[in-house]
Structure formats: structure tokens, C-alpha cells
């Protein structure tokens, strides 16, 4: 079956130069190795239907570069056929302004309400009872990736939790290995902090602070400990002169760094580099402290175009995105978890299986993107990128700023 589709895809790819009945332009920012391989699976699945063809509108540089393009295309009245956002609050306003297409009919026909697990993913797509987006995967942030070879070189056992890891930092330093790899992009710093908060203080603390805006809790003792842990992480991260997250991951892959706290998408990089979970690298969900993963992820939105042919292609894509075959193929490449529990991921590696187990056990938490607006995230980015890059800022001072951001959030 898949084979058949591939053949079809190849033949449509050949005639892609000709004007097609419904070219569906899809904007996304998946341009790293694993991401590009994953998105190719989506394109292949759409192109399998000879009526539609996927026109790739990849924008490198992440959401910051791509989002203004998406928004201006939409308000400029010349929208693309579909675009990728992190589901959560990013698209709220576009939906309210009626610029995005209601996909409830597809969701009902495909029975999304029954298959999407956890249901919170679909809720994130739902505004006033209507469904506006198609979730494609679950991404969780709470992973610690460790290089087995690096710890071997340092002469210590591969840690099984955060405390063991911090204890091994000096040994790693002594072996001229970067203890913790951290890219300079702001979102990596705030992501790291949020992981520490969710695992060391607990998911309910994070939900309470970001979801309810509880500034007293943010100013409390428990958070102070998280800030101390962050300061420790800062010491371990000092000296990793890289920008992009996957460059930081590459430090772990090449055993130049002991570990990295990064979402499960990092797994795609390990896979592209040909590394095997367990043998070459170790992954610790929830930092080995508590088994919890957040259920953020990517979703596709479909702007209103008023063009029946494009709408047909949009419907087709929406359905395809959640189809079991696509879910398996896509998520294996992307290193993320499928949004439906009923697919067979026999091919999944150790790390994904760990994630699936946690998911099946239901120990999930909402993603930060679902709780915070981008504005709040941006302020957190500013705070933590500064904190992690500048030793001069005390954990206490950072906490103070943190509290003021929480107080201001809406």
C-alpha cells in the first residue's frame, strides 16, 4: 500500500512542473534534517491523490521568521493553503477574525473526537465548539539527552536523573567535555527553564503559574529552588558557543558535550546521524525525576481562500494528516509521538517507546504554548536567555523579573 503510494507520488512529482488542478501551498518552518524528512512524508501522502499537489513553502529560521510571513499573507488577502503553527494560543486572533477555515466537517467525518489522544490536543484546536486545526504530532519538552561516550570518557556512569547528571558535571569538565549543551537562541533557554520547573517543582506548579497567573506561587520557595537549579544548569552550560538547537544536539551526538535538555525533536537528529538509542545515547524523559511529558505539538491551520478547489485540497490534507499511515511515517521521522493511540509504532526506538508509555499512562501536562500567549513567552525568552548567558544575574533577581512577567500576563 505504502509502496503504491510512493509510486504515485513519484509520478505526480514528475509532472509537478505543470499547472495542477489544486496546488496547495503549505508554509512551515521544518527545515532541519529530521524535520525535512518528516514533512516529505506529508507531501508524499497528499501528492498520492492525483487531484492535489503539495507546494512546499518552507521558511527557514523558525517561527519568528515564518510567522510574520504567514500573518501578512493572510491579512494581505493572499493566503497560503495551509500553514503550520504550534497549537495553542498563537492562532487565536486569526480565528476570531474569521480568517481561518472551520474544519469541523472534516473532523466529524474522520471522527477526530474519538481518535485524538490526549483530547487536550483537539481542545487546543477548538474555539467556540468549532475545530480549526489539525494536530499532527505530540511534542514534549521534558527530555534529557545524554551521550554515552562522553560519560565513558569522563569515567562516570551515564546518569539516570538530573541530580546524578549535575554531580557528574565536574568530571565532564575535567575530561574537557562540555557538561550541558545549550544553544544561544532565546527559546532554548526558556524551554530549559520550563523543563526544570515542570520536573523539579512539578507540572501542577507550572500549570498554576502559567495557567492561572499565580504570582505568589511564582515568588515562592519552590520556585526559588528551581531558580537555583537553573543557576547550576547555567554553570554547566557555560562555554557552549553554538546558536541553533541542533548544533547543540550535534555536540551531544559528537560526544563533545555530555547532554542537552531539549524536546523530543532532538531525536530526529540522532536518527539522521545514525545513532541508536540506548547504545550511543540515553534519553531521560522528565529528566529522570518524574515521568511526565507535555503534550504540545504542531498543528496545521487552513486559511479561508474562497476557492473551492483549494478547499477540497485543504479537506484532503486535513484528513490525511491524521490518517494512521501518515501518523506513523511522519512521527517516526520527526521523532515525535502520534496524536492517536491506535497506531502501531513497532518501528519506534527506545526513547519513543518511553514516551508512548508515559502517554498511555496519562501522565501528561499541557504545553507552555497552550497556557501562555506568545507575548508572555517572548518576555520569558528575554529573561532566560539573559539569565543563562550572563553570570552576573543572580537567581533571586531573575525570579523577581519572572514574578513581574507572571503578574502582567493575560
Amino acid at each position, binding site marked *: 500500500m505504502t509502496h503504491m503510494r510512493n509510486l504515485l507520488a513519484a509520478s505526480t512529482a514528475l509532472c509537478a512542473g505543470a499547472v495542477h488542478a489544486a496546488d496547495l501551498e503549505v508554509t512551515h518552518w521544518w527545515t532541519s534534517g529530521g524535520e525535512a524528512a518528516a514533512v516529505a512524508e506529508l507531501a508524499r501522502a497528499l501528492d498520492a491523490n492525483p487531484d492535489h499537489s503539495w507546494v512546499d513553502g518552507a521558511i527557514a529560521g523558525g517561527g519568528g521568521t515564518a510567522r510574520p510571513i504567514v500573518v501578512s499573507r493572510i491579512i494581505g488577502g493572499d493566503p497560503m493553503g495551509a500553514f503550520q503553527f504550534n497549537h495553542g494560543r498563537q492562532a*487565536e*486572533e486569526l480565528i476570531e477574525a474569521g480568517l481561518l477555515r472551520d474544519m469541523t466537517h472534516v473532523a466529524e467525518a474522520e471522527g477526530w473526537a474519538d481518535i485524538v489522544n490526549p483530547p487536550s490536543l483537539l481542545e487546543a484546536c477548538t474555539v467556540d465548539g468549532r475545530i480549526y486545526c489539525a494536530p499532527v504530532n505530540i511534542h514534549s519538552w521534558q527530555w534529557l539527552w545524554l551521550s554515552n561516550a562522553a560519560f565513558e570518557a569522563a569515567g562516570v556512569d551515564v546518569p539516570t536523573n538530573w541530580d546524578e547528571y549535575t554531580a557528574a558535571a565536574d568530571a565532564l569538565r575535567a575530561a574537557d567535555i562540555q557538561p550541558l549543551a545549550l544553544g544561544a537562541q532565546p527559546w532554548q533557554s526558556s524551554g530549559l527553564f520550563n523543563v526544570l520547573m515542570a520536573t523539579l517543582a512539578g507540572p501542577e506548579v507550572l500549570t498554576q503559574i502559567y495557567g492561572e497567573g499565580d504570582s505568589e506561587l511564582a515568588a515562592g520557595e519552590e520556585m526559588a529552588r528551581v531558580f537555583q537549579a537553573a543557576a547550576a544548569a547555567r554553570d554547566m552550560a557555560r562555554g557552549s558557543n553554538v546558536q541553533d538547537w541542533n548544533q547543540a544536539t550535534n555536540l551531544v551526538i559528537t560526544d563533545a558535550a555530555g547532554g542537552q535538555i531539549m524536546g523530543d525533536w532532538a531525536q530526529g537528529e540522532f536518527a539522521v546521524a545514525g545513532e541508536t538509542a540506548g547504545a550511543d545515547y540515553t534519553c531521560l524523559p522528565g529528566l529522570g525525576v518524574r515521568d511526565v511529558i507535555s503534550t504540545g505539538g504542531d498543528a496545521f491551520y487552513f486559511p479561508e481562500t474562497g476557492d473551492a478547489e483549494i478547499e477540497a485540497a485543504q479537506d484532503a490534507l486535513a484528513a490525511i494528516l491524521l490518517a494512521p499511515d501518515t501518523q506513523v511515517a511522519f512521527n517516526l521521522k520527526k521523532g515525535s509521538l502520534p496524536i492517536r493511540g491506535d497506531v502501531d509504532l513497532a518501528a519506534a526506538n527506545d526513547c519513543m517507546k518511553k514516551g508512548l508509555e508515559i502517554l498511555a499512562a496519562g501522565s501528561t501536562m499541557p504545553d507552555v504554548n497552550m497556557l501562555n500567549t506568545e507575548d508572555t513567552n517572548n518576555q520569558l525568552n528575554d529573561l532566560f536567555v539573559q539569565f543563562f548567558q*550572563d553570570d552576573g544575574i543572580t537567581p533571586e533577581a531573575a525570579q523577581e523579573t519572572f514574578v513581574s512577567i507572571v503578574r502582567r500576563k493575560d
Partner: protein
Amino acid sequence: MAHARPNPLFRNLMAKLAAIPMILTAMVVFVGGTAWTVTYSFTNSKLLPREKFVGLQQYERLWETERWMVSIENLMIYGICSMVLSLLIGFVLAALMDQKIRFENTFRTIILYPFALSFIVTGLVWQWILNPEFGIQGIVRGMGWVGFTFDPLYNAQIVIFGILIAGLWQGTGLVMVLMLAGLRGIDQEIWKAARVDGIPMWKTYLFIVIPMMRPVFITTLVIIASGIVKLYDLVVAQTSGGPGIASEVPAKYVYDYMFSGQNLGQGFAASTMMLLAVLIVVIPWAYLEFGGKKRV
């Protein structure tokens, strides 16, 4: 039987018609766009512009934000250094080129070519040259001088100067050409007179030639200054504002809050502050330049 005085609106009618694109640009885009921006800076627009007015709230927040303060400080440092240094270097280079040297074309081309490259390219190359591992620092250390440290892009204290190095590399060529053009416009007899009077060369430049080149300096300043205010691409390509927020600049603040942060109101408030600063500089200048004199 004297003719009726024609409607002054139709005097030079064709000139006015031909200036319509300019008038439209000035009024609709620049004035209109500015007014639009200022208006929406008083709203709490997030992803889309919305008329939900919140007074000065965005401004209060702006001036409480450390990143904005850092951005302004950086722009001041970069702006002053860039203005002074590019004028100084540009002028000195132009003066050297003006010594009737051989291979003038070659030298000039070498100094000017970076101007053809975008800030993105400039930023990338210099990011690389200044990379401590395999850039200059790495090379010097590799030669045996292990203690050598030159990592401006990774040191929050001096990162803005790392950007300045790249900015000057890209921009001084044009300044040099402008200055050279100015020098070529100086009457040769000035030099003869100065030589006869026994005035040293540096004094001639400082007290006679430079004051004569006032218009060139003004044009150059407009070009440099407009570039400084818009400083964005170079920072993004070179440091993305890092390490931490040490090399943030106002234009990047505007962009990040408008688009990444999905807080248009905040971005508009920041840009309004930038526009205000520009107005404070441009209006007196424009008044001096065009207000006073009329040609006969």
C-alpha cells in the same frame, strides 16, 4: 484688459503631476503609516491590529523592560562609534587616496566592495571570523599563544563592538567614496595657498578642507544615520541579539515583539519611540537645510 491671475494651483502643473508619486509616498506611506503606527501603539493589539485602546500602558511597559533599555544603550554606543569612526576612517582613507597614489582604482575597489554585500552576508562572515574556536582567536591560540582571547561575539560586555567591526567593514567604503568625491571638489588652489603659507597638511585638512566639505558631511551623515537607526539584519545574522540580550537593538525589539511576540501594540510603541527620536534629529536639520534659504 489685464489677464486674470491664473489659479496658483495650476502653475507648474506638470511638475506637480510628476511629483504625485513622491507626494503620495510622503503623505500616504510615511505620514499615513506613521500615524497608523502611532495610533495603534495606544492599543493592546496582539497578532492583528485592533482598536482596543489602553492609553499609555504599552509605553509604561516598554520603559520598564530591561531589553528595551539595553537596546537603546546599544544603539547609542553603536551609533556614536559608527558615526565617528566611519567618518574618521572614511575621511582618512579618502585623504590617503587623494595623495595622487598609484593603483588608486584597485585600492578603492577593495575598500568599496563590501558595500555590495548585504548585511546578512556581512554578519555571517564576521560571525565566523570572530568565532573563538576556528576564527581569529583559534588561529592565534593555534600558533602557540594559548592565553590569547578575542571573542567579542561571545562576551556580553563588548559584543556591540564585534558588530561594529562588521558594520564598519561594510559601510566605510561608501563613506570613503563620498569623502573622496568631496575632496576632489576642493579647489586645488587651496592646497597651493596652504603650501605657500607653510601650513602643515593636517592643519589644512582640519581647519580649511573639512569646513569646506560641509555639504558632503551632511549627505554622508544622513546616509550613515539612516542606516544606524535601521540596524537589524547585521545583528540578526551575527549574534541574534546574544549573548543573552547583550546585543539587542531597537529595530529588533520592534520586530520581535510585533511578530514573534505577537504583541503589535508593544512593537508599535517601541517604533513610535524610535520615530520620535528620529524626528528630534531630522526636523532641526531639515529646517536648517531647506527652511532658511531660497534660491533666486
